[in-house]
């Protein structure tokens, strides 16, 4: 194996490790942190089923964002939906051997890359030219978009221009990562840049705003059922405090019971 292939193979496992451990820790943190009070935001479902549907609409259609701002919704949706299709299509590289027939149907998904890049471009333009959004942007907010744009554009170049990469080799490399049967990877610059930035993305996922992906599922204003009067909702720390009558205000204001 070439040195560059060894480096990229190592980078893959390192970034994947950071991603899994980091996300695991973060999701664990989100899940063990109690939500002591019922704080769903209207329009609020009154049943658990209602909450499930609300969440599905939120993560598939970006319902709240649609109500909020049509431009951000349009660009955000183009980007995320494009990314989803592109990711699904990328599965072919990680499955060793012949592909199931269903993958033929996914062939057109490659055009989703354009949706992705257009969406990202729109978001970047807004970030630069809408003063309100410029005001709230940190350097990392621009960098994140730039990085995703470069990933998208380098992918487009490989797929739609004459700068094709040897996909057979890519497949051998990628499926080798899965089966631990490591292989050399093509060394065109745009492919290496593409791959490297994907690894960076994986690694910074748990320490950046990309945490919105697990975050939305844990958002109490979106995932709580509005049944406060029917069921007593109490967090472990509040229950402990209640049992111990430990409210320190008793000392200054007197006991209530």
């Amino acid at each position, binding site marked *: 194996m070439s040195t560059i292939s060894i480096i990229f193979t190592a980078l893959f496992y390192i970034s994947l490790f950071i991603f899994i451990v980091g996300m695991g820790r973060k999701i664990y943190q*989100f899940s063990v942190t109690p939500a002591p009070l019922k704080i769903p935001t209207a329009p609020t479902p009154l049943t658990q089923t209602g909450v499930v549907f609300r969440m599905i609409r939120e993560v598939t259609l970006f319902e709240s964002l649609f109500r909020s701002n049509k431009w951000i919704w349009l660009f955000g949706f183009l980007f995320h939906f494009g990314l989803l299709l592109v990711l699904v299509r990328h599965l072919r590289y990680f499955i060793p051997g012949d592909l199931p027939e269903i993958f033929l149907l996914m062939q057109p998904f490659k055009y989703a890359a354009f949706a992705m890049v257009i969406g990202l471009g729109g978001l970047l333009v807004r970030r630069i030219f809408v003063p*309100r959004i410029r*005001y709230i*942007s940190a350097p*990392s907010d621009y960098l994140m978009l730039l990085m995703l744009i470069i990933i998208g554009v380098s992918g487009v170049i490989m797929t739609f221009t004459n700068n094709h990469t040897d996909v057979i080799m890519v497949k051998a490399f990628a499926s080798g990562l899965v089966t631990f049967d490591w292989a050399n990877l093509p060394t065109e610059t745009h492919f290496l840049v593409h791959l490297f930035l994907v690894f960076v993305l994986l690694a910074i996922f748990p320490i950046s705003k990309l945490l919105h992906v697990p975050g939305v599922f844990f958002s*109490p204003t979106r995932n709580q059922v509005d049944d*406060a*009067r029917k*069921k007593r909702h109490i967090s472990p720390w509040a229950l402990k405090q209640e049992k111990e009558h430990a409210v320190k*205000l008793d000392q200054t204001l007197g006991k209530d019971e």
Partner: protein
Amino acid sequence: MAAKEFDIPKLPTYIEIPELNHGVMDGDGPFKSVEEFQKPLGFPGEKIDNWQEVAIAKMGELKSKYRSVQVFLDSCVKCGACTDKCHYFLGSSDPKNMPVARQDLFRSVYRRHFTFAGKYFPKLVGAKELDDDMLDDWYNYFHQCSQCRRCSVFCPYGIDTAEISMAAREILDTVGVGQKYCNQILGKALTVGNNLGLPEPALRDTLIDLEEEVEEDFGAPVKYPLDVKGAEILLITPSADFFAEPHIDGLIGYGKVFYQDGVSWTMSSYASEGANFGMFIGSYDIMRKAALRIRKAALDLEVSRVMVGECGHAWRVAYSFWNTLSGVGAGAQSSDEHAMRLQKQLDDRYPQPQHIIEYTHDLIQRGKLNFDKSENDDRTVTFHDSCNVARATNMGGIEGGQFILPRDVIKAVCNNYVDMERSTIKESTFCCGGGGGLLTDDLMEIRVKGAMPRMQALKEVEKNEGVNTLAAICAICKSQFSKVLPKFDFDPYMIVSVHQLVSAAIILDKPQTTNSSPDGQTDAEEPVIEAEETAETE
């Protein structure tokens, strides 16, 4: 009142997103609390020496106790969807009043101290130190948030600035930088029993006067009972209802509805306050302490129903939090002694707690109330959805009931009703500008500016539909509107309680003999609860 001069916003024909006006709302914030108000709440009397250390530790504690804080701090992608949703931004154009920018005052410190990127690459991710300037910004701008949660409706992740604002205020209190208005009032509520500091004898006199007045005006012996043990309903209402205009006309209305229904009810001198400013300052403990007074009153008076008067955040605390804080509700596990003690006593055929609007609505549905709607024919009414009711609660147990029921009640007693523009009502309602602990004269500038979006929508229906009455079910909204309406060339008396409209139209024809009340609804000579010996607040 040494308020600084400021321009009252002009009402545009439609709401425009203003250009950013940096630092226009910079300032020292509202009057700071002092030792006398801080100490009883368990907060330091002045800014402590090692405040940074304590503040960061408190931030760590809060994010481990509140999933909302942790998740909201991590999840924001700075998409900008919320940037034009805050009434204080729309009215003031100060960029720090954009919800995300307000949160970022807090989030930048969180990143600096609790995240990898913020610790090692602070400039890259906009992480900042909590220094004196930042703390001043916190104090100023987190007291320009009414915790109305409009931003949360529009955020793709549901990020609720109110949660961040509450956490920031709790940290500020912990390091001795409290707000005078909220903390002084809390002291009164937690010792005397209400925000006005009205002791039991004064309250009793007020209610007796009110009974005489109502009998004179309406010719029916409507009662406003206090501390009646064994009454069916305990009414918890904001203390503004006892005195302030137009609130008291709402209280008159409640009494008339109870009278017509023939139910026995009482108020409590020990828990004579529906408002719970513990929520505004973000303190679970203090909010619970205030809620426990109501629990105690319900237990001592042996009532079977707890009902809440017209008050926005009180209804949020009651509907969403009481069951958690004090067990006023239903569905506790049988092993849960604290909650069960009360829940066994409460009548499970009714929602606990119940809103006065739900109660009146139910009576109307069952045909138990008769109205002469023409009494309100001089009015064309619109309804202001109060933020806490609209976005944080429900009524009637049906989806959107908190929007439907009040409108139903108004339409049952008025012939002329119109809604304001859809994007300014219901879950998208604009705050009155005075909620969340901002209803104090030292914050008049932000209150007036923040009222602009609501005033704009009101101007539209005034012009196009001839609206001359603004009805609301929140004591803070009513007080705020009374103050700001004239600034925008409206009649300050156009703001009314919903139950004032009910009161005007209701026909009091109940036969006088069949009173289902237990002992002595008419007179309560012996208060069963001793008012606390802390009538004075010095």
